[in-house]
């Protein structure tokens, strides 16, 4: 009886397996491109949040007035022509002919004005621009004019801003949504249309080709140029587990992984069916210090903490493989035009004795510094234990507090002393679009409580930023950027931990056409 049962079970299971094995890849189609995005897409309003995945969704559905090409140059995108006055106060723009939203309605100046105004209420640099803006008016349906109170040479940088909140153009009726509320209609003039009836956050997000989209004639380059679509359908497949991502692409079930999990590097690079690419510039990790409460309200103690940083040790622990990171002392990514090695005392290598001496001079009272440890966040959770040890070696008492990422982002809003629910330090990461311009980089603020978490008060830094904004040439900007870097380390606002590579994995020979860009661009892709 036992044998009979076992044999029947084996037969039944085998039959079932063989019977439906043929369906494994039955849904595969060369016109469906399956992408594993960096995170689940839960928020569909890229102006309301600064989450990278919402920004990338924005690039699918919306277009920008200006784009940034692969060389970092700003190029007209929805704009056809523009003029500027010699004093940079008056700017006029004309839209390309034939632009329309995916619902068939033409893109007009009114849509642009409403969109830019809403963006300027949310974005860090947009808010700066809004304070300088005197008049923003439509000349006609296709032309508009911006008039500033003072010279504003960075107008094109604002309109082409690639990250944080990228400046996307929406229909006026949508853009009139208050900036603190999410939009509920997702109509754009970008290369794709969101298929709302198949929108299943946590599972799959589907985009179809926008038949109304009018690409520019130029080749795609960065976020500029013609954003052509060669597939009928793009599916963002939400796979949160790193191993599942690797298994799925190895099995041909997905075609592209936007950000390869670092711990899968060794396995994926040896797979001959896969190709590892670096379509975006490097990102960075930074150590952020709270200047609002002791002890880092004393710049000497902040400098001592920065001297404890051992970039190689920290980056190796987090990124696992040496191919994926580089020590870099500049506050800008080392492969970016503004990068420089003028960092004063900061070398990226530990200087424990010098740090101890500074602590003594500054009168550090030995009170524990609270280091926030996001234990659930795989992208950051190897840093804190290493940093805690380095800080101890430099003479600090360290209280490393474990929590999830949501708790960390809440905790960092607290201005209480560290022992009363506040904090002293944490590490986070930034994308290239955030750091390419000091005006875009949120932590680079010296305006106290109005600034980013850490709330440094540094009037000289603010003045340097104002100078940078007013600078008319690249040489002038580069010089000021260097001074900004020196001042950042002098005040001890934050310290660079290192640069890391964003690796995109594609099925070799199956997916081609990935466009190098500041942000991940999913147009121009072909599935062969």
């Amino acid at each position, binding site marked *: 009886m036992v044998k009979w049962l076992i044999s029947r079970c084996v037969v039944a299971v085998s039959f079932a397996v063989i019977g439906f094995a043929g369906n494994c890849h039955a849904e595969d189609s060369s016109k469906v491109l399956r992408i594993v995005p960096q995170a689940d897409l839960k928020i569909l309003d890229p102006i309301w949040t600064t989450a990278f995945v919402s920004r990338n969704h924005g690039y699918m559905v919306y277009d920008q007035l200006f784009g940034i090409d692969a060389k970092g140059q700003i190029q007209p995108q929805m704009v056809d022509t523009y003029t500027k006055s010699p004093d940079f106060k008056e700017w006029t723009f004309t839209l390309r002919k034939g632009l329309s939203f995916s619902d068939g309605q033409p893109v007009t100046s009114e849509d642009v004005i409403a969109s830019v105004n809403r963006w300027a209420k949310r974005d860090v640099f947009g808010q700066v621009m809004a304070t300088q803006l005197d008049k923003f008016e439509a000349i006609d349906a296709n032309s508009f004019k911006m008039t500033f109170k003072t010279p504003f040479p960075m107008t094109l940088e604002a309109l082409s801003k690639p990250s944080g909140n990228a400046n996307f153009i929406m229909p006026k009726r949508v853009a009139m949504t208050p900036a603190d509320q999410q939009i509920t209609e997702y109509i754009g003039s970008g290369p794709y249309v969101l298929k709302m009836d198949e929108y299943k956050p946590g599972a799959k997000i589907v985009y179809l080709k926008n038949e109304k989209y009018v690409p520019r004639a130029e080749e795609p380059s960065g976020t500029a140029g013609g954003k052509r679509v060669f597939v009928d359908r793009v599916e963002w497949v939400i796979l*949160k587990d790193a191993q599942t991502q690797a298994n799925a692409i190895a099995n041909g079930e997905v075609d592209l992984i936007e950000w390869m999990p670092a711990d899968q590097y060794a396995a994926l690079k040896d797979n001959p069916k896969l190709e590892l690419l670096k379509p975006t510039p490097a990102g960075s990790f930074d150590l952020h210090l709270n200047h609002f409460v002791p002890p880092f309200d004393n710049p000497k103690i902040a400098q001592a903490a920065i001297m404890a940083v051992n970039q190689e040790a920290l980056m190796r622990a987090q990124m696992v493989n040496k191919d994926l990171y580089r020590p870099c002392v500049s506050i800008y990514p080392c492969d970016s035009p503004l990068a420089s090695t003028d960092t004063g005392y900061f070398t990226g290598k530990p200087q424990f004795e010098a740090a101890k001496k500074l602590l003594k001079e500054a009168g550090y009272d030995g009170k524990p510094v609270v280091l926030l440890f996001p234990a659930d966040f795989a992208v950051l959770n190897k840093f804190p234990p290493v940093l805690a040890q380095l800080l101890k070696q430099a003479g600090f008492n360290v209280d490393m507090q474990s929590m999830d990422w949501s708790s960390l982002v809440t905790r960092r809003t607290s201005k209480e002393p560290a022992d009363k629910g506040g904090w002293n330090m944490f590490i986070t990461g*930034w994308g290239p679009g955030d750091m390419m311009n000091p005006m875009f980089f949120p932590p680079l603020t010296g305006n106290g409580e109005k600034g980013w978490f850490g709330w440094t008060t540094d009037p000289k830094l603010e003045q340097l930023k104002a100078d940078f904004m007013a600078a008319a040439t690249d040489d002038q900007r580069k010089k000021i950027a260097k001074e900004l870097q020196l001042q950042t380390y002098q005040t001890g606002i934050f310290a660079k931990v290192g640069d890391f590579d964003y690796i995109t994995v594609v099925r070799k020979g199956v997916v081609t056409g990935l466009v190098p860009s500041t942000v991940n661009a999913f147009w121009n892709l072909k599935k062969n």
Partner: protein
Amino acid sequence: MLFILRRVLSTVPVLLIVALIVFAMLRLTPGDPAAALVGNNSNSEDIARIRTSLGLDEPVPVQFVRWAGKALQGDLGESYYMKQSVTHLIAQRIGPTLSLSALTMLITLSIAIPLGILAAWRHGGWLDRSLMSFSVLGFSVPTFVIGYLLIWAVALHWKLLPVQGYTPINESFSGWLSHLFLPAVTLSIVYLALIARVTRASVAEALTEDYIRTARSKGISELRILVRHALTNAAVPIVTVIGIGIGLLIGGVVVTETVYAIPGLGQLTVDAVLGRDFPLIQGITLFFSFAYVLINLLVDLSYVLLDPRIRY
């Protein structure tokens, strides 16, 4: 009938207490949804604005009364992140979880009960000892280890089944089965161990009863004795364990759903908790509570059918 009515009515205070506890615990737990929502580049002012727009700056009792009032009318609110109603999101995710639970139970029961009966029948024999060893293994090996091993062998090595994903049964039965087979096998190993063990113990105990000896002396076949007499009389503890298993399955398939990327309620719950999506956490908790109460009720009612001596 009165019993059923009484049990159904008893769910109301249970759900109310659950709602109150969950609401209070969420507000006491560190983590501000507004801070999680706005992204890395925003500052304190942005967060404060979002808190206001979500009504999170109001006193907690006011928030509770507003939420409870809507919940009583069937409106569980809207997800902070996805801007979709909580009921819609639960409805969207319940299909994969129920499918996975049903297939897991089907595989489990079709193997565990015969195995348990056979082990009891051959008490102390090799099958019995093998089953006990398998039970220890089934309980001890983490689900994700079993999952990854099965994926490696069946999906990556032999290319028989897909690694991940889910296809609704109404779109394609074969797609549904091919995507759920491995996750269901993964999960069923734990439950198989549990239910086979309980079946073995219950049937073994029943086999020592006088009525079994009487049946054997009357010349009734062993198969009929095992199924008709022993199993029927041993069914109450087995059904109880199955009921608990179903309840655990519906709320506890998080790891399996993550490993196989099945968009079910388990993943939705984890996402909601990590993102402090208060309305969603509250809605899912209420749903789970209701499901547990319902399953318990069904188990209790099944006792009447299985054992005529039980009356409510």
